[in-house]
């Protein structure tokens, strides 16, 4: 197996696990109506979406702009954590 084939396989697995995680968080949001889970669900969806251009065109890495999606996802997660901590302090 060449490096490109192995990368495509690992990247596909990563896409699937990110989307699965997004679905789990979505389910938690459905049960609890806690926006913490909704934000996490969307963030993991973005992380999964980010894998598509990286998998089909690994040279995208050198352009770097695709990593802005990843950065947005991480910022959303930090916002969700801060929001949750603030709501717990108010209680």
């Amino acid at each position, binding site marked *: 197996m060449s*490096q490109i084939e*192995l*990368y495509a396989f*690992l*990247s596909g*697995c*990563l896409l699937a*696990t*990110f989307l*699965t*995680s997004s679905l*789990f968080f979505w389910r*938690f949001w459905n049960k609890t109506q806690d926006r913490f889970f909704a934000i*996490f669900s969307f963030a993991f969806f973005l992380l999964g979406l980010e894998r598509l251009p990286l998998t089909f065109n*690994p040279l995208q*890495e*050198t*352009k*770097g*702009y695709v*990593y*802005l999606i*990843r*950065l947005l996802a*991480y*910022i959303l*997660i*930090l916002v969700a*954590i801060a929001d949750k*901590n603030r709501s717990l302090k108010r209680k």
Partner: protein
Amino acid sequence: MIPIVYLLCGLTSLACAICLLSGYSRRRSRILLWSGLCFIGLAINNMLLCLDMLVFTDVSFLIWRTSAALAGAVILVYGFIWEMV
């Protein structure tokens, strides 16, 4: 601009891991533990990305990076399934 994006990805993923694990140490919510462990894998992925793109440009860490991220994501999914069943 692009090196800054790589560095910010590394820093924010590390910050997420630290926040989630410190949240787990306070509240003992298992979802925070599994998410924190996932973000350790993602932080390793992003740190290797910075090293790959900015420092060791002649060597490719592509497979190692992707494997670290996959390990983190698999730990998260494992945690979800373990907690729900």
